[in-house]
């Protein structure tokens, strides 16, 4: 336990770069995100443009920074949404009688029939592609995942006497949930949140690729892959870099989740 798990370290390293770039983009990007510069189009990576430029001469580093920001924000919001609904639902399932919890469980699992791309497609048809649509679509899919984990973890906690003691001390159901159940089931939930964030990054990239997420001209990692796919032969870095950034984020989340799982396990 003295030496940190190498996976934790590696995961944090994978995430640190992209997150730093995303945060930096809030204040500064090397070039304007949508600034055209036809004279310098399709430049391979060099000192002035570390990630190169695209067919309109836009700086890929600046666009990637903004895209990372959108991806990370969407992934965090979606995971948060899924956790915010799924965890209370799971605890309710654990706390209710088998006769009532079984249908609830089934109902939560029903959401698995709607992968994010389906939900996002419906929302995009109604409202056009939007980051909010992507958040809802991905977050909804996370609900049954968090519900399952929370239910399994909360079941033994609910039977403990300190829950009874807390009720006797005058805590209402929400107080017991917040002060006693959540802290005691936090470990598996944190692990799952990390893994789900990775899945959310993948899903967000897929949705923006299809145009069901954040709409252009705002740069998104998936949208860039879509735009630059045809330039694969002429300017492979345009396809390699955004995809590698997505992979790096997902890998970081997965490593972090795996490392935390072993670390937090009793």
């Amino acid at each position, binding site marked *: 336990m003295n030496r940190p798990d190498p996976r934790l370290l590696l995961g944090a390293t994978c995430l640190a770069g992209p997150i730093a770039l995303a945060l930096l983009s809030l204040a500064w990007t090397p070039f304007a995100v949508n600034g055209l510069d036809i004279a310098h189009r399709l430049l391979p990576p060099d000192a002035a443009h570390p990630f190169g430029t695209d067919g309109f001469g836009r700086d890929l580093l600046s666009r990637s920074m903004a895209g990372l920001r959108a991806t990370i924000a969407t992934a965090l919001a979606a995971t948060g949404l899924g956790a915010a609904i799924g965890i209370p639902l799971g605890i309710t399932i654990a706390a209710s009688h088998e006769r009532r919890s079984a249908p609830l469980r*089934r*109902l939560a699992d*029903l959401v*698995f*029939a*709607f*992968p*994010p*791309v*389906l*939900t996002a*497609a*419906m*929302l*995009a*048809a*109604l*409202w056009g592609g939007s980051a909010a649509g992507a958040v809802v679509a991905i977050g909804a899919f996370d609900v049954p995942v968090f519900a399952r984990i929370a239910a399994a973890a909360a079941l033994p906690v609910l039977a403990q006497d300190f829950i009874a003691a807390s009720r006797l001390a005058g805590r209402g159901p929400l107080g017991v949930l917040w002060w006693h159940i959540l802290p005691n089931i936090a470990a598996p939930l944190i692990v799952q949140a990390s893994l789900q964030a*990775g899945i959310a990054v*993948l*899903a967000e*990239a*897929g949705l923006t*690729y*299809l*145009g*069901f997420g954040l709409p252009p001209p705002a740069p998104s990692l998936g949208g860039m*892959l879509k735009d630059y*796919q045809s330039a*694969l*032969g002429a300017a*492979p870095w345009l*396809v*390699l870099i*955004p*995809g590698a950034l*997505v*992979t790096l984020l*997902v*890998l970081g989340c*997965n*490593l972090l989740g*795996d490392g935390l799982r072993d670390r937090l396990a009793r």
Partner: protein
Amino acid sequence: MDALTTLRSFASRLLWLALALLACSAITFAILDILPGDPARAMLGMNATDEALTALHAKLGLDRPPMMQYLAWLDDLAHLRLGTSMTYDIPVAQLLSGRLAITLPLAAGAMTIALSLGLPFGAIAARRRHRADGVMLDAAAQLLQSVPDFWLGIALVGIFALHWRFAPSGGFPGWAHPAAALGALVLPALALALPQAAVLMRVMRSALISIEPQDFIRSARARGLSPARIFLRHALPHALLPVLTIATMQISFLIGGAVVVETVFDLPGLGRMLFDAVGNHDLVVLRDLVLLVAAAITLLSMLAEWLATRLDPRGQPR
């Protein structure tokens, strides 16, 4: 399990399936037709005239109360009367059959590849976990499962289609040319399958590792059974259960992934149909299509779940 309980559990599953499909249709309907946002307006665009809107409302039945619309849709579905595409003005059913002929083989092929790569490599990685090659294998899987499938697809196109010219970079020649058609599906199926294979491999690996110290494996070893026999008769059946659970959940990922990958390879499958329906605001197609996909996932998941209970070496339905 005697015949009666088998029958009863089968009946209860069937009942649940019917309920689940009904719920899927309700969710789909609720999102598309009850959420704020006028489908007719979305279809006709912002500068549509009021008359055009009213006419389209009447044509789509949007002037009826939502409950009636829903029941009418259910009635159509029950009689397998799918709607008529607003864009192409051809029946959805006709559109579907051609699309399914691409998506089904693609998804089934991807699942087959994922299982046939993931399971053996998982077993190897578990066996050699203390050696350098086993550790490398696990690390490679960790990396591979983090790769977006559609990006992998683009990369495969770059390597095999553009560089080596092994395979077509996209498009679909139709099943009239079986060899060419299969060839067109190879790269997309690989793109879909490889990340999922990595996931399955890691599940298989950890399942086998966690089984190893258990009593029944030890006693089999003490009885002098050969390692191969222990693996096939004792370890494998136990490890398959978690693998199957994960594979079930992957059905959803595979079908979601197929939508994106089909777009990468310009395959006119269900995914492209979904993509086009959204682009054209064709809510009639979208509604039937979403329900079809959700129903397929539900059905397949249930089948896999049923298979898992049969496979469970503890012999008790869970």
